[in-house]
């Protein structure tokens, strides 16, 4: 986050009102408005306090296991016959995904604010597990809202959260998936305003969440810059990351947005295909609207009613996306692609066999795009993909789709 600020920077947002161009903002009920203003003030103060950064850095080193390696995927590179492919190994973090980067920042902030109860929403369960973990570490009660459908399909993570002492509340309202879990978490927050901190899992929601979560996740891109300099003596040529809400992607991308030579690709979940109704690609198949506190691209009908996203990956099937991605799409700085369920499953298997890494289904979408992009690029092209989560949680889903293997 200490990069020089260049003219015409893509890294200046949001403005004082929380807008990235036309996106972002603070579209919340009045009850929450004072809380969000407090949070913004507390976050600005924490950012300016070296002790806060030092505390996060220490936890990264000794608790999370950062820096995560930048790994040269040699056999995958051979297989593709083009770009030199690196994985940023955020799946090796404690709790198995990038989510912990953000959660530790927010929990430390919650404690600075004197909050004594933590709530979170979760889809695949990775953010829920990370939040339950940090709450256990710091002795805070934790309530995780999870759509009842997701509770069913992500059982291992439900057990993990419970082991860690969190209360998991299956959400029965609406479509009973991630967006409903977020509705329910917001309802809890509106009801328990005095003592509760809402730990949002992705770079979305009302300002300051999108900027704050991005800042906490930017450690991914910051490390990648330094590691690639060390390995190859220069910066990478392209970056690839999957996008649900988009926190792992913005974390990798943000430190590189002002390096004009670097191609940046975000990969949305195309489910059964963008031309079907069953996908979760808000940018490719949605349009701008307002939900969960921000304006951003959304999947919705022509009456403004929110539609369900579909993806084989429970972490990607959110009908919206972080507002900064919406802006970066409109600006043309990031190219947004998509990968289908089938593409992700194929990439998942290939990664297991060629690299001995079982990826989560979320980064398997990014890998599917890498398999398309890498062969078309020269051998001296350096491509970094964020391996943002490990696939232990997904083995049953994958087995179901592959007919029990």
């Amino acid at each position, binding site marked *: 986050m200490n990069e020089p600020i260049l003219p015409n920077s893509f890294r200046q947002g949001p403005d004082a009102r929380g807008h990235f161009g036309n996106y972002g903002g603070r579209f919340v*009920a*009045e009850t929450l408005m004072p809380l969000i203003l407090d949070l913004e003030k507390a976050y600005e103060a924490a950012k300016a306090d070296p002790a806060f950064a030092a505390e996060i850095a220490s936890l990264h080193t000794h608790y999370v296991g950062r820096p995560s390696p930048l790994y040269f995927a040699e056999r995958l590179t051979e297989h593709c016959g083009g770009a030199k492919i690196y994985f940023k190994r955020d799946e090796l973090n404690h709790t198995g995904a990038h989510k912990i980067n953000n959660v530790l920042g927010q929990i430390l902030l919650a404690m600075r604010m004197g909050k004594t109860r933590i709530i979170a929403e979760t889809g695949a369960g990775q953010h829920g597990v990370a939040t339950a973990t940090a709450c256990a570490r710091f002795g805070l009660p934790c309530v995780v809202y999870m759509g009842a459908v997701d509770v069913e399909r992500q059982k291992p993570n439900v057990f993990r959260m419970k082991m860690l002492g969190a209360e998991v509340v299956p959400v029965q309202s609406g479509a009973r998936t991630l967006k409903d879990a977020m*509705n329910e978490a917001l309802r809890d927050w509106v009801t328990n305003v005095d003592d509760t901190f809402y730990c949002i899992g992705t770079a979305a929601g009302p300002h300051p969440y999108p900027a704050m979560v991005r800042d906490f996740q930017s450690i991914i891109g910051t490390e990648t810059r330094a590691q690639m300099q060390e390995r190859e003596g220069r910066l990478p040529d392209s970056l690839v990351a999957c996008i649900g809400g988009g926190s792992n992607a913005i974390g990798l991308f943000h430190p590189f947005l002002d390096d004009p030579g670097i191609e940046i690709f975000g990969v949305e979940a195309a489910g059964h295909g963008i031309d079907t109704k069953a996908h979760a690609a808000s940018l490719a198949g949605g349009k701008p609207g307002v939900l969960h506190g921000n304006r951003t691209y959304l999947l919705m009908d022509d009456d403004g*009613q929110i539609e369900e996203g579909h993806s084989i990956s429970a972490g990607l099937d959110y009908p919206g996306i972080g507002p900064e991605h919406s802006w970066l799409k409109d600006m043309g700085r990031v190219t947004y692609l998509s990968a289908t369920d089938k593409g992700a499953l194929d990439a998942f298997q290939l990664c297991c066999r060629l690299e001995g890494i079982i990826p989560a289904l979320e980064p398997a979408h990014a890998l599917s795009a890498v398999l398309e992009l890498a062969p078309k690029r020269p051998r001296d092209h350096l491509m970094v993909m964020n391996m943002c989560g490990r696939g232990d949680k997904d083995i049953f889903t994958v087995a179901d789709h592959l007919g029990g293997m």
Partner: protein
Amino acid sequence: MTARMTARFADLKRQNRAGLVTFITAGDPDDRTSAAVLRALPEAGADVIELGMPFTDPMADGPTIQAAALRALKAGHRLSKTLAMVRDFRAGDDATPIVLMGYYNPIYVYGVDRFLADAKAAGVDGLIVVDLPPEEDRELCIPALEAGLNFIRLATPTTDDARLPAVLQNTSGFVYYVSVNGITGSAIPDYSRVASSVQRIKRHTDLPIAVGFGVKTPEGAAEVAAHADAVVVGTALIDVLARSLDAGHATPTTVDAVRGFVEGLARGVRSAKRPAPAAQEDRP
């Protein structure tokens, strides 16, 4: 203020009683029944009507109102039909103010300018849009005021004295005081705090104060009516409507069930013990 809203609150003041504001969700459980319920509300004693614009993801509402919205949407309701419902209602009632209440996304997708023009033409008096705080006034609040519609803001227990002026600045019609932190229908309000809360807001504004969230009975309505300029009842009314349904569909008892419940609330509001008008004028 629209002429209807001004006239209605002036009339309530002359009668020295609080108004009854009733909430229903447009199109719940179907357009035809919902239109009949809407017509029955003023007959039963409602003074102002809040008409919910259904939205799939009503973050500030409890399960009762979300279920009502989903019933309406499932039956094919949409924002253009809400506006048509108001237009039809106005053919028979040009006195009862109607406030549309909901979330921003359907309005944003409909188009703000087109929505305001159509709402005004249909006979809408005001808007309550839950997810548009003063910080986003440029989106809809300012254009609505320019279009001659009231923009009614929610004030809550978290809205402290420092923030109240900002909340009230572009508010018109009335102020909707949400008496508890939480979602609609979630808790029983502490009636002893209603009086002091209303007085607190009145120190900052001359607008009428309507109090809602948690009023479920005629007795509760009377308690709130003793201190507020209007009493809002929503979830309890939707509960009555929902109980009259058969597998989500209207039955012959649906309209009468709502009518009977509203008549009880209206009696409650009218039975409230209030200070004499002169004393009420004598505010700090």
